[in-house]
């Protein structure tokens, strides 16, 4: 198992030790009102907007100008990617340019939009990219920088920049409890796009992933997608031979289909549908879906999952790759209310250690269903 160790303990302290805002009750720079599990959706949005205003208040004038884009700015709305800086230029404010209190406020905002697990995943992805940076782009035998450098005659790695500093925050539209707006936070292998429309919040479309996926940080073993891989394996193990015949579409893994640049495209449901599953298997399918969508805060997640469950009969699970290796196989869930892709990718090394994963809602990417046209 590829298990690099990041020596910079200070980095861990700076990144992973930041407070999870939804748990915070202090009134410091990153503090936002706590939201109980029973709170109404309006209270959740109010907490998110409050957290956004705390972050905005921590910025100077030039930073506020840089971070804020007009709601009508579709170019910025779709300005996200899996690529690192050097292959893709994000806009907004760079994590590496923020002060400590500003980072704390931003973490507070992310922790209000996302769940505790979701925030942890984001932080782990940033830590993962720090590992990639320390290792020079992927380590021996799989190092992107080494490989690219070789193609340039050993003259340099090009302009690829890795590391936790290279994550950007931006707003499309001003944070509001009534008007639509969007929070973007992304970098290499990460594109969180949270659209807020009144009491509603969606993360569609959002990209997650990482390289490495498994690593050791400050002595702690990290596996960014352990819940998802476990849930996928459990669902597969529950299927009968006949069901596997429907679910397994190919023994060769696929690649990500609906990544950045593929807005407005809808995969046609394929594989084993919820209608052809037992109640126990349907529960496992929902658990798999929630393992991904659970990065959203609990309040908005409940609404999202209810809609998905209503359409479970028409929601299909499809598998591409070895049936006995959930960490390196591609799988997708397609239905009226979601498309989820889990896409390991070989970089000349372990496919299970390099992921591009997507969540989309065919009816509601960027909150399209909530916004009058």
């Amino acid at each position: 198992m590829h298990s690099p160790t990041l020596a910079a303990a200070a980095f861990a302290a700076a990144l992973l030790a930041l407070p999870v805002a939804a748990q915070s009750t202090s009134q410091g720079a990153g503090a936002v009102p706590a939201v109980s599990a029973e709170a109404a959706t309006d209270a959740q949005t109010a907490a998110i907007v409050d957290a956004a205003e705390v972050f905005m208040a921590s910025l100077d004038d030039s930073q506020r100008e840089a971070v804020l884009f007009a709601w009508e700015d579709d170019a910025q709305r779709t300005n996200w990617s899996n690529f690192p800086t050097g292959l893709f230029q994000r806009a907004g404010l760079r994590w590496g340019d923020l002060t400590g209190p500003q980072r704390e406020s931003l973490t507070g905002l992310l922790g209000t939009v996302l769940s505790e697990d979701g925030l942890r995943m984001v932080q782990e992805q940033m830590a993962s990219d720090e590992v990639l940076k320390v290792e020079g782009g992927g380590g021996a035998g799989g190092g992107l920088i080494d490989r690219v450098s070789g193609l340039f005659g050993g003259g340099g790695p090009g302009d690829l920049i890795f590391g936790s500093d290279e994550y950007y925050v931006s707003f499309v539209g001003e944070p509001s409890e009534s008007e639509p707006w969007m929070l973007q936070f992304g970098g290499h292998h990460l594109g969180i796009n949270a659209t807020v429309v009144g009491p509603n919040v969606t993360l569609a479309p959002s990209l997650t992933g990482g390289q490495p996926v498994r690593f050791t940080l400050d002595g702690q073993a990290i596996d960014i997608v352990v819940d998802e891989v476990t849930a996928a394996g459990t669902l597969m193990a529950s299927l009968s031979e006949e069901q596997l015949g429907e679910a397994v579409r190919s023994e060769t893994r696929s690649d990500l289909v609906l990544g950045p640049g593929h807005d407005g495209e809808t995969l046609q449901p394929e594989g084993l549908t919820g209608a052809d599953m037992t109640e126990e298997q349907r529960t496992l399918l929902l658990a798999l879906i929630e393992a991904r969508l659970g990065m959203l805060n609990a309040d908005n997640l409940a609404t999202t999952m209810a809609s998905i469950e209503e359409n479970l009969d028409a929601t299909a699970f499809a598998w591409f790759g070895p049936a006995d290796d959930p960490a390196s196989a591609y799988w997708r869930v397609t239905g009226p209310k979601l498309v989820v892709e889990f896409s390991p990718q070989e970089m000349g090394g372990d496919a299970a250690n390099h992921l591009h994963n997507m969540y989309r809602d065919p009816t509601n990417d960027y909150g399209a269903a909530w916004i009058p046209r």
Partner: protein
Amino acid sequence: MNWALQGSQIAAFVTSFAMAAGAAAAHPVDELIQGAYLTLAPGEVKLQLDLTPGAEVVPSVSSSLDPDADGAVSEAEARAYAEQVLADSTLILDREPAAWSLVAVTVPDLAVLAEGGGVIRIEATALRPDQDGLHVLAYENYHEPVKSLWMANVFLRPGEGWTYAVTDQERSDEGRSLTVTFEARPE
């Protein structure tokens, strides 16, 4: 998308550009990812074929893109490359072969390709009649200049009084081929 571009207009759209990475979704190293996006639309099947060469296999792809090795991909070179790639695929509609017509091709700067971050995008169309009932579309991609990962997926773009519904999809194990059964209905 520039699906409306035809004939000589292709040349105007064939550009060497710093690929908007938003259109790219992968950066493999030792393989060529070939992603076919097939769209059923009124009167035609649209093909968007995204070719993403990993950094280690770029030299092989670049030599086909830039046969005169002058470091730049001309419009003629890009078009010739695209035609060659399209010729390596087949489309059969209701058991009748259909021909691809090249609509556009976009090629990143070779330097961007070399970093494994560029996508060569070939857009083509094949005419088909819209008729009420069940139909079968079979696509297969034989293009394999280097180690490749193939994928093909179908999308729907109803309009002009027609709706479509996919009733079955079958794939070959290595991902080269996709057979789609679909129903066309007048609205």
